[in-house]
């Protein structure tokens, strides 16, 4: 059974979608929201597997809402013709459905989601409610007009920039509005390591380790970045790696 939340500002649009989803017994619509803030609240309280999300909503757009979430469930965007949104979809190859939604396309999208979920369940046996973010979780990153779904396993490095954190993945390094301390609390300790005051590194993305001044270490990451490990953390690092 998959838990579903529908987020759309129009009641009729939500009703229509619910009616379409009634054809899928494996899905259960657990909540509805009429704007982004309500959406964040409902996602927080129900921890859904899948959300249907409208882009244009009063207050905040669907993209803005996703960027505020710590952990993003599978998303299927629903939108009427909207050039701006279509451009975002093309650039980022996100899954979307055009309103009025064609039932066969909806079925395709749902089957795709189910297949992805099953695969994920096989790879990581752990499931249920957990508060830490593992490398299999995805986050939504929005930087100006560009946005990405990013699997945490693909992130090499978080760098603190004032109140923001710079996220390094692929060739991109957008900013997200989260402090490094808040991130450290949520990220799984066995994969993500606080190297110093300004950096959290993904341990699986380390290419080389070299000794550095003062008993510290210098890490070469796979993307070419270099991160210094402070002396205190270096002790911890060696402990972790020797296990």
């Amino acid at each position, binding site marked *: 059974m998959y838990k579903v939340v529908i987020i759309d500002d129009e009641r*009729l649009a939500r009703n229509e979608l619910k009616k379409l989803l009634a054809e899928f017994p494996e899905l259960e619509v657990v909540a509805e929201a009429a704007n982004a803030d309500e959406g964040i609240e409902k996602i927080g309280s129900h921890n859904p597997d899948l959300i249907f999300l409208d882009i244009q909503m009063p207050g905040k757009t669907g993209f803005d809402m996703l960027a505020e979430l710590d952990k993003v469930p599978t998303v299927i965007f629903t939108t009427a*013709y909207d050039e701006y949104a279509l451009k975002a979809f093309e650039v980022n190859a996100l899954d979307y459905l055009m309103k009025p939604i064609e039932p066969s396309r909806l079925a395709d999208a749902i089957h795709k989601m189910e297949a992805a979920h099953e695969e994920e369940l096989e790879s990581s046996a752990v499931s249920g409610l957990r508060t830490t973010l593992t490398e299999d979780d995805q986050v939504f990153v929005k930087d100006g007009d560009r946005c990405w779904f990013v699997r945490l396993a693909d992130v090499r490095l978080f760098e603190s920039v004032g109140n923001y954190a710079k996220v390094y993945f692929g060739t991109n390094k957008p900013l997200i509005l989260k402090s490094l301390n808040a991130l450290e609390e949520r990220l799984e300790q066995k994969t993500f390591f606080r190297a110093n005051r300004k950096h959290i590194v993904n341990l699986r993305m380390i290419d080389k380790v070299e000794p550095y001044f003062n008993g510290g270490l210098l890490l070469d990451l796979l993307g070419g970045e270099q991160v210094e490990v402070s002396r205190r953390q270096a002790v911890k690092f060696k402990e972790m790696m020797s296990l």
Partner: protein
Amino acid sequence: MKNISKYWLCQIVGWGSNIAISLFFVFTLGRYQGVYVLSLVLTCAAGLLITHLMRIHIHKLKVMSMRIKRQVIYFIVLTVLYAIVFGVASEFIDYAVGYMPSEKMQSYSRGVRILLSTFNGLWVLLIWNFIYFLYHYVETNRKQELNNLKLEATVKSLELKTIKSHINPHFIFNALNSIRALVDENPVRARRAITELSNILRSSMSAEKEETVPLKQELNLVSDYLQLEQMRFEERLKVEMNVEEDTLQHPFPPMMLQMLVENGIKHGISKQIKGGVIKIQAKYIADKLQLTVTNTGILQHNGRSVQEGGFGLKSTTDRLHLLYNDEARFEIKELKEGEVESTIIIPRTTPINS
């Protein structure tokens, strides 16, 4: 081909008349000499050849497409250069046919004679170049003006077309989606919504054909549109209409009010979580029709929404200008916190025909 023959015509007529005038003077002064005529004809033939070479040179250097200051400099330099060539050629011709202009001339050395011939040639070439330059200058200007006019006309008609047929696809698909939901929930309302939507589509298609329609027709369209939007927004959209009876027959540019109302909803009311009110007012003020659309919202000066709104608003201004010159007016402003008002004022007279 026409231009080439025009050029050669000018060349032949120009040099031919040079020969004719010189002969006329020589005959009237009674200093006719066989060698002189020969020298004159040959010199003019050389002049024709030299100016033609100069023209090829002008083309090669692309002088005509330079900025005007450079053009003048190039023309002066070319004129002097070719005048020297002309001077040498004319002196050579005189020598070859054995023509001696006068006793005084004979006392000068060859160098001085070439200098004098060059000076003579300079005047001829200056006149030649002046005519050439002036002709092309006028011609390019005329062509450019013509092109500009054509371009302007195309842009205008294109703009008008896109403005008039502008019904946001986002609106159409959202409306269709709501109708699909209503088919089960409220079939009577769903049927009415289909009628409203087809009215809107029909109006937007026929709007391209007409310059103006009676205000009543535009108001019907707007009220169909608003009913459909109310179906989507439900309690979030409230509508107030306040239209004076005597304005209903006033000729009005089709889809113009519709676009303002759509803007008001798209950039105003749809952005408010609690929604808002849209007010439409039509009345005469001192012989002019005044239409106002007031909506809940904030007039934005930056961001994406203004660009889109910007097109709609600018096209409204342009369209009014096209139809009424300076007699009509359009403005949009923030009335007070959270209320935006757009106003159209058009004269009672029928619009100018374009």
